C-alpha cells in the first residue's frame, strides 16, 4: 500500500515536472572548438530563443575523428545524441550504418516540414545525397580549397603580384621566379590528399575511385593513379626536390608558415580565411585553385570538405519534430549567411549566398566569394560530386604516407600512387566485408 502511494506520488510529480518543463532536450554533438565553438553555441541559442518547445544542447566532443568515435560508442551504449556532426570522409561509414541513422529526407517527410533539398548548392548537396537523389544528412560546414597568395612575397622576389595564376603551368613559372628571387618557401600546402588528389581529380573531371567515386557501390576501387594525378604529383615532387614546394605536414601545419609571411603561395581551404585575416601582416589575396591547362574538361568544379549533421535513430517522434524544426532553422538564409561570413565556410544554400551578396559582404571582403564561384561554376559530374569511400580517413593516412615518399624522393609519383591504390583497396575490401 505504501509502495503504491509512493509510486503514485512519483508519477504525479513526474507529470508535474513534464508540465513545468515541457521543453525536450535535443543533444547536438559537434567538433568545433574555440571561436567556431562559440558560433555553434550562438546558433543553438538563437534557435532556443525562437521557440519554447525544444532546447538544443550543443556539446563539443573533440576533433572530427573523436566526435565520430564518441557517437559510435554512444550508439553502442544506447546513449546516442539526436544530432551528430560527422566530417565528409565519414559519410560512407554513416551511410552504411542503416538502422543507426535516420535519413534527413525521411525525418523531414515525417515531420511535414517545409523543406526543399534543391535549395542547397549542388556540390554540397551531392556529397550527402544518394545516387537516387535522397539527402541523407544535413549539410552544415563546407569549404573548398583555394590558392592563397602573399602579394608582398611576389613583390620582394621581383614578380608582379597581379600575374595570372590560373593554371599550374603559370604557377610553375611563378615558383621559378620566386625561387630565383630568394624565397625560401615559394609554395606550401595543407591537407595534401584532399587538395592535390581528391580535388585535383574532381577539378579535372577524372575519377578518384571507380563506381562514381564510390557513390554507386561498395565494390569501388581507387583510381587515383591515373595520368592526370601522376603528372601532378610528379610536378609537385620535382618542385619539392628543387626547394620550390615545402612540405610542412599532413594537416594544416603549413598555415603557420604562410601566416608568418614565409611562404608565397599556399593551397588551403577557403575556411582558412578567418585565421589568415587575423594574423597575416602582409598583403594577401585569394585566387581560384589552379588547374592544368590542356586537360579536357578542366576546370570542372572543386569538391567540399567539412561536415554534415546526421540524425541518429532511437529517439521519440516528438523529439524528432524538434530536430526537424532545428534543421530548418539552421538552413535558413539568415543563419547560414551569418555562419558563412563569420567563419569562411561556404554558404550551403543558394539563398544564403545571395543574401550575403545583398548585404555587401563580398564587396567589403574581396575574394571571399571565389570559393563559392569555383564550386558552383559547373554542374557536378559523376567525378566531381564528391567521394564515398569506406575507411576513408585511414585511406587518407595511406595517401599521406605515399606522398611523403614522393616529397622526400624515395619513390616516383607512379610507384607511390600505385602503392596507395593497392593499399587503399585492401581497406575498401575490409569495409565492404564489414558492411555487406
Amino acid at each position, binding site marked *: 500500500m505504501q509502495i503504491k502511494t509512493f509510486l503514485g506520488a512519483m508519477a504525479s510529480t513526474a507529470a508535474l515536472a513534464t508540465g513545468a518543463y515541457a521543453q525536450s532536450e535535443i543533444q547536438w554533438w559537434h567538433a568545433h572548438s574555440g571561436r567556431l565553438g562559440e558560433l555553434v553555441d550562438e546558433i543553438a541559442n538563437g534557435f532556443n530563443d525562437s521557440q519554447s518547445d525544444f532546447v538544443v544542447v550543443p556539446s563539443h566532443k573533440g576533433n572530427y*575523428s573523436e566526435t565520430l*568515435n564518441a557517437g*559510435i560508442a554512444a*550508439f*553502442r551504449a544506447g546513449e546516442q545524441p539526436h544530432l551528430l556532426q560527422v566530417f565528409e570522409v565519414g559519410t560512407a*561509414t554513416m551511410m*552504411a*550504418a*542503416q*538502422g*543507426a541513422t535516420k535519413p534527413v529526407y525521411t525525418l523531414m517527410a515525417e515531420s511535414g516540414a517545409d523543406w526543399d533539398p534543391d535549395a542547397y548548392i549542388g556540390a554540397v548537396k551531392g556529397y550527402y545525397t544518394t545516387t537516387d537523389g535522397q539527402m541523407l544528412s544535413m549539410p552544415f560546414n563546407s569549404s573548398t580549397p583555394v590558392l592563397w597568395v602573399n602579394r608582398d612575397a611576389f613583390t620582394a622576389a621581383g614578380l608582379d603580384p597581379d600575374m595570372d595564376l590560373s593554371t599550374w603551368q603559370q604557377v610553375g613559372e611563378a615558383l621559378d621566379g620566386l625561387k630565383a628571387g630568394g624565397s625560401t618557401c615559394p609554395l606550401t600546402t595543407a591537407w595534401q590528399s584532399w587538395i592535390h588528389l581528391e580535388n585535383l581529380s574532381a577539378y579535372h573531371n577524372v575519377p578518384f575511385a571507380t563506381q562514381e567515386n564510390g557513390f554507386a557501390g561498395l565494390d569501388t576501387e581507387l583510381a587515383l593513379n591515373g595520368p592526370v594525378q601522376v603528372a601532378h604529383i610528379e610536378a609537385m615532387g620535382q618542385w619539392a626536390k628543387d626547394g620550390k614546394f615545402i*612540405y*610542412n*605536414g*599532413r594537416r594544416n*601545419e603549413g598555415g*603557420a*608558415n604562410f601566416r*608568418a609571411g*614565409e611562404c608565397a603561395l599556399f593551397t588551403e581551404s577557403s575556411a582558412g580565411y578567418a585565421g589568415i585575416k587575423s594574423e597575416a601582416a602582409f598583403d594577401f589575396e585569394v585566387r581560384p585553385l589552379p588547374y592544368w591547362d590542356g586537360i579536357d574538361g578542366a576546370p570542372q568544379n572543386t569538391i567540399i570538405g567539412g561536415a554534415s549533421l546526421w540524425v541518429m535513430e532511437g529517439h521519440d517522434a516528438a523529439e524528432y519534430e524538434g530536430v526537424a524544426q532545428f534543421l530548418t532553422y539552421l538552413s535558413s538564409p539568415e543563419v547560414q549567411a551569418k555562419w558563412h561570413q563569420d567563419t569562411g565556410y561556404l554558404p550551403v544554400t543558394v539563398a544564403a549566398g545571395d543574401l550575403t551578396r545583398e548585404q555587401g559582404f563580398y564587396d567589403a571582403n574581396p575574394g571571399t566569394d571565389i570559393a563559392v564561384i569555383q564550386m558552383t561554376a559547373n554542374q557536378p559530374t559523376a567525378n566531381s560530386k564528391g567521394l564515398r569511400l569506406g*575507411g576513408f*580517413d*585511414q585511406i587518407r*593516412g595511406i595517401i*599521406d*604516407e*605515399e606522398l*611523403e*615518399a614522393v*616529397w*622526400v624522393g*624515395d619513390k616516383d609519383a607512379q610507384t607511390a600512387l600505385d602503392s596507395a591504390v593497392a*593499399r587503399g583497396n*585492401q*581497406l575498401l575490401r*575490409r*569495409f565492404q*566485408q*564489414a*558492411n555487406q
Partner: protein
Amino acid sequence: MEKRVTFKGWLLPVLLLLPQIVVTAVFFFYPAGQAVWQSLFIPDPFGLKSQFVGLGNFQYLLNDPYYRASFVTTAVFSGLVTVVSMGMALYLALLADRLIKGSGTYRTLLIWPYAVAPAVAGVLWLFMFNTRVGVVSWYLGLLGYDWNHVLNDAEAMGLVVAASSWGRVSYNFLFFLAGLQAIPRSVIEAAAIDGAHFWTRFRTIVFPLLSPTTFFLLVVNIVYAFFETFGVIHTITSGGPQQATTILVYKVYKDGFVGQDLGGSAAQSVILLVVVGILTVIQFKFIERRVHY
C-alpha cells in the same frame, strides 16, 4: 630447512586472495577476453552486424607487409627508449650518489620531468624541434644542419625516442639511486683499499649488486615503450613520416579509431598481448638467472 606456513581449509586463502582476483578479472581478464572474442569477427562500427571470420583477421594482418614492418619499428623504438632512458638514469644516479652537498636539490630537479604526461612531453619536444619555428632546429640551421623530422625518418625516430625517454629518465633515476644507496659502503671501500679504481669497482661490485633494480627497470621500461608512449607518437609524428614511427600500439589506435576496423584492431591487441607476454617470460627465464638478489 624450509619453513612453510599452510592454511588448513581453502576458504580463508581464497577470501584473502579475492580482492586481487576480482580486480584482475574486472580490469584484465574481462577486457582481454573481449578482445580475443572480437578478434574473431569483422563487425561494423555501430555493432549492428558482425561476421565470424575465425582467424581471418590474423591472417589479414600477418600478410600485410606494413604490419610486419611495424614489429621492426617497435623493436627499434622500444630498444632505444629502454637503453637511452636507463643509461642516462644510471649515469645521473652514479653522479648524484657521489654528491655530498646539495644532492637533495639535484634529486628533486631530476625527478620533475616524471610529472609531465607523455602527450605534454611530446608537445614540448615538438615545439623545440618544429622544423620552422623550433628553437633547437633554428640553432641547428645556424650550424648548417637542416632539421626536418617531418620528412626524415631517422630524425623523426630520434625525436620520439628522446621525448619518450626524457620523462622516463626520472623514474629510472629514482630506482637506480635507491639501489646504489642500498649497496653497503664497506664493500666498496674494501675494494678501494685493494686498489680497484672507480670503473673496476662499478663493473665488479656496483653493477652486479644493482642487477635486481636493473632487471626490474628493464621489464617496466619495455612495457612502457610498448604502450605508454602512444601520447608522444600521437602528438609529434602521428606515426610518420611514411610509417617510420608507427609502433604496434599506434597501429592498434589507427586501425581501430581512425579506420573503424574493430576486428582487425582487436586482433592486433591480442598479438600485442602475446608479444609482451613472451618478452616478459623470456626476461624472467633467461635474464633473471643472472640477477643477484
